């Protein structure tokens, strides 16, 4: 017992305190624009997808999943909305037809607003038909899934971008869009659905890459700052592991001992 802290919890306690401090400092400097997020390859693939939709004169789907703002997966829905902003801007500029079906009642108005803003900035607001391009399908999982599958089979889109939280319906989407021949860029931070996207999509954004895309697109200082702090912890994890492994192999177990204090 060290000042009442039980055995094996001293290092976690110090680590947690440091994490609070470094995160706050990173967000503070993030607001001062000290950091920048690298452009992840996934965004280039999304641009390719829109290009393909223009070439083939067929629509491009952008599905942000059925998560709502009050669910624990809200950050993934927010990342999906940022990508929707990016895709809709590209579609407005290049003249591709965007289809973005909606499932969450509280997310839909925000999505419509984002798409309308992108089309307005490109001066193409008259080309946007919100009811046809951003239809509300359903809030229930399988009605939502079969609604999208029906649209995909009918419209035979050239491409499909799926970034956000997905559940069991991810397998149905990935399989149907691939069968229809759509070029797919998919990404989610829900670990259990990643295998389907990785197996079937042409390019997959793995886990936290969707948050990096979100921070890159929105340039939000708080997000960029916290992404920097996360990178710091990953680098610390790598350093401790490498040094620890070398020392342990040489018989010196100091790192492992400190970590289990």
């Amino acid at each position: 017992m060290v000042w009442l802290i039980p055995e094996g919890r001293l290092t976690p306690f110090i680590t947690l305190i440091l994490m609070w401090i470094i995160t706050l400092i990173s967000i503070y400097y993030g607001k001062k624009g000290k950091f920048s997020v690298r452009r992840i390859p996934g965004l280039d693939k999304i641009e390719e997808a829109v290009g393909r939709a223009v070439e083939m004169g067929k629509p491009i789907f952008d599905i942000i999943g059925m998560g709502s703002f009050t669910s624990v997966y809200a950050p993934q829905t927010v990342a999906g909305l940022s990508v929707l902003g990016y895709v809709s801007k590209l579609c407005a500029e290049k003249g591709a037809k965007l289809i973005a079906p909606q499932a969450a009642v509280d997310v839909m108005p925000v999505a419509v607003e984002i798409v309308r803003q992108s089309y307005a900035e490109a001066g193409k607001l008259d080309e946007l038909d919100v009811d046809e391009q951003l239809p509300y399908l359903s809030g229930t999982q399988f009605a939502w899934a079969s609604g999208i599958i029906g649209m995909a089979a009918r419209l035979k889109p050239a491409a499909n971008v799926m970034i956000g939280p997905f559940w069991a319906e991810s397998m149905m989407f990935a399989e149907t869009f691939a069968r229809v021949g759509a070029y797919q860029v998919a990404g989610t931070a829900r670990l259990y659905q990643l295998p389907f996207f990785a197996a079937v999509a042409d390019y997959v954004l793995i886990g936290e890459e969707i948050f990096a895309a979100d921070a890159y697109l929105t340039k939000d200082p708080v997000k960029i700052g916290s992404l920097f702090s996360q990178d710091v912890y990953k680098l610390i994890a790598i350093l401790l592991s490498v040094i620890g492994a070398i020392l342990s192999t040489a018989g010196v177990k100091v790192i492992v001992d400190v970590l289990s204090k």
Partner: protein
Amino acid sequence: MYKREIPLLITFLSGMVAVLEYYFPTDATKNAFTVLKNWGIVIAAFALGFGAVNLFIVYGRRFRKAPNPVDRVFSIWLLVLLVITALVGVSLSSASDQYQWIYNSIYLPLGATMYASLCFYMTAGAYKVLRAKTLDSTLLLITAFLVILGNTPLSAAIWKGFFSWRMWIFDVIVSGAYRGIRIGVGIGSIVLGIRTLLGMETGYLGRR
């Protein structure tokens, strides 16, 4: 003030008590946290009713306004079932035979089969879509193939190597890659947790 600041303060305090009780498990922190944990169960229990209220709002409106009659019949059917299940459960208790009858006849078969039928989708997917098109999909296909092979007892009976390959893939490749992913997810959740406790992430308060 009491619309945003006090709720954010409650988020911070209820989070901090939990963290304090872990690192400083004195009688004071333990007793205080015991009460808060028991409160948490009651409040979480109250929140279980949200699903029913949401359905009454969404499908109540759909019953009144939906153009096609099939939607309206299904909407009212859904609400009727909700009420019947709730009445039987609350009046006779969930441990009653009548309630168990409803569960065994309706909820269990639907819940067990709805997601299970995805295996047919996966079969069609494996046949039509799982291609060694790019380097990425080829790598994935190799381990998927070996694991599916290793998962069948028949293959292990033919040659024990199939089973040891499958175990090697899990004990080395999966353990290594997913340890890195797990550290990344852990760090992400902690940082998101810090931002939420400090009121920088307020999506959960609902947008108004």
